[in-house]
């Protein structure tokens, strides 16, 4: 999607290894979000950021950490990947927060074996 890029698009990793997913935006939006999408669960919020170095937990934050050192980049780290973290991860951005909608990236498909 224009203005928001996720990398990598696909990744296979082994249980117990650290993994970092990157979300990069060129829109200068203040708010950034990480979601995971699993069948039957829809979109679940992992962590979000409301500015540089300002982050907070979502509903499924256990096992994940985030960092935002620049407006344009929001990193999601799985410190020690587990099979339950196999999922599709989406980043989203918003200029003004939830009340005016989000723009989503194209996703990262992560498989933990």
């Amino acid at each position, binding site marked *: *999607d224009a203005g928001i890029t996720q990398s990598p698009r696909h990744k296979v990793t082994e249980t117990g290894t650290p993994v970092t997913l990157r979300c990069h935006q060129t829109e200068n939006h*203040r*708010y950034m*979000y990480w979601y995971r999408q699993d069948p*039957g*669960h*829809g*979109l679940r*919020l992992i962590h*979000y950021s*409301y500015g540089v170095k300002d982050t907070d937990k*979502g509903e499924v934050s256990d096992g994940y950490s985030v960092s935002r050192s620049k407006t344009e980049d929001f990193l999601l780290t799985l410190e020690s990947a587990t099979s339950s973290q196999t999922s599709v991860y*989406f980043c*989203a951005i918003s200029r*003004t*927060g*939830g*009340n*005016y*909608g*989000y*723009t*989503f*990236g*194209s*996703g990262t498909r992560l498989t933990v074996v």
Partner: protein
Amino acid sequence: QQQVKQSPQSLIVQKGGIPIINCAYENTAFDYFPWYQQFPGKGPALLIAIRPDVSEKKEGRFTISFNKSAKQFSLHIMDSQPGDSATYFCAASRQGGSEKLVFGKGTKLTVNP
């Protein structure tokens, strides 16, 4: 109070039919109700949104109907086409930058030729 309940989970219609997807919410402070459309392998994309000062909004073949007293809103797709086959998510949010979208669990729509 933060939940948005979406139904049905899946829906199959014939080309030209009018699929209807319903969502219900509890939090009366919600004042922004978007629908997102997601094609396989892509991120969700904003389709149409409504605020509670109107009861209906149309954009092309897509219509949102909003019933404030019942705390329900629905998506109607007129003259549905196979290209409308996708997963649809409803969502809701309150005012305020720190507020986040609360998503329904999604409806997988299949439109048969």
